[in-house]
């Protein structure tokens, strides 16, 4: 018998068999849920995440304190604190760097590591971590260098670190 026809028992008529039925002849009928909507939604989600995802670097906090109200310009007469270490920050010619000047240190410091070592040296010389550090940034110095000095002072384990404004 030709593949394109089928014979029904007790029937003389020759029935035509379409190609789709011919292919599936003898195969098991399989049940499959419709995957198309799921794939559609999945791709929508993927596209959303690809477009909106933004990788951020891990942020943290360097803790500090603020002076109590009214103490900003106050001169403490009783029990004066030990001579503070004043660190002046000035921008270098190109904005990508800064110069650090520490009271009592004749050389201008340019690297954070050098600053850290100098602060450690002063701490050992004074024999105390309670010596206040006063950071005096100039008006046009970028914030990253102010954070750098604060960070190096915290790294050197100084306990009192404050900011001050240079009076012009």
């Amino acid at each position, binding site marked *: 018998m030709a593949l394109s026809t089928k014979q029904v028992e007790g029937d003389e008529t020759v029935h035509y068999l379409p190609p789709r039925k011919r292919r599936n002849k003898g195969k098991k009928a399989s049940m499959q849920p419709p995957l198309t909507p799921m*794939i559609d939604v*999945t791709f929508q989600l993927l596209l959303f*995440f690809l477009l909106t*995802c933004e990788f951020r670097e891990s942020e943290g906090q360097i803790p*500090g304190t*603020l*002076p109590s109200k009214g103490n900003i310009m106050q001169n403490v007469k009783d029990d004066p604190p030990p001579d503070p270490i004043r660190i002046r920050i000035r921008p270098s010619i190109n904005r990508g760097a800064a110069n650090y000047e520490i009271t009592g240190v004749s050389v201008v410091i340019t690297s954070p590591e050098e600053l850290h070592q100098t602060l450690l040296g002063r701490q050992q010389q004074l024999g105390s971590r309670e010596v206040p550090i006063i950071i005096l940034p100039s008006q046009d110095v970028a914030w*990253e260098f102010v954070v750098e000095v604060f960070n190096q002072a915290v790294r050197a384990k100084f306990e009192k670190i404050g900011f001050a404004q240079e009076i012009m």
Partner: protein
Amino acid sequence: MAKSAVYGTEGGSGDVNFNMTPMIDCTFQLIIFFILASQIASEETAKKVKIARPHMSQALAQSESGKIPNRLVINVVSGDPDGLDPDELAAASAGFYKIKTRSIDIGDQDALVEEIKNTREELKAQGAVSETDEKKKLFIEIRADKRVNWEDIAPVIRAGVHAGVAKMSLTALTEQK
């Protein structure tokens, strides 16, 4: 007629079915990766603020949730957040201060102090801030763009002092591991 070795069909008239399973597997893997890796944007932190990464950073990593109830984040956004000016002159000046969803103009010191005071009252009402409990005292976090000049950031510290805030912290990137 010859049978197709790949699809088991006869001739060219058969259906061609792509094997979708590996593609769906990969897609799901990607989705899971993005869901886990993405961070939901917080209203506290302004976008496009370039944070400083000091040498041997002493910055303490934030809590897992990133939400500290007694913290008030003051963002100092650069005047050129996208870094379009190659000379970085525009970036050196702050564009505005941002506290939660509110933007405050540079130079408006009173508004800055007022906003800190208002937020403290709100947080007090919610029970997140207390004047008596040391652990629950309000603290400000200065989250400033590293390119901004000190002259635009000093007013934030002054505002904190005027508002009677005792503690502050500076935002910096943590040390790379």
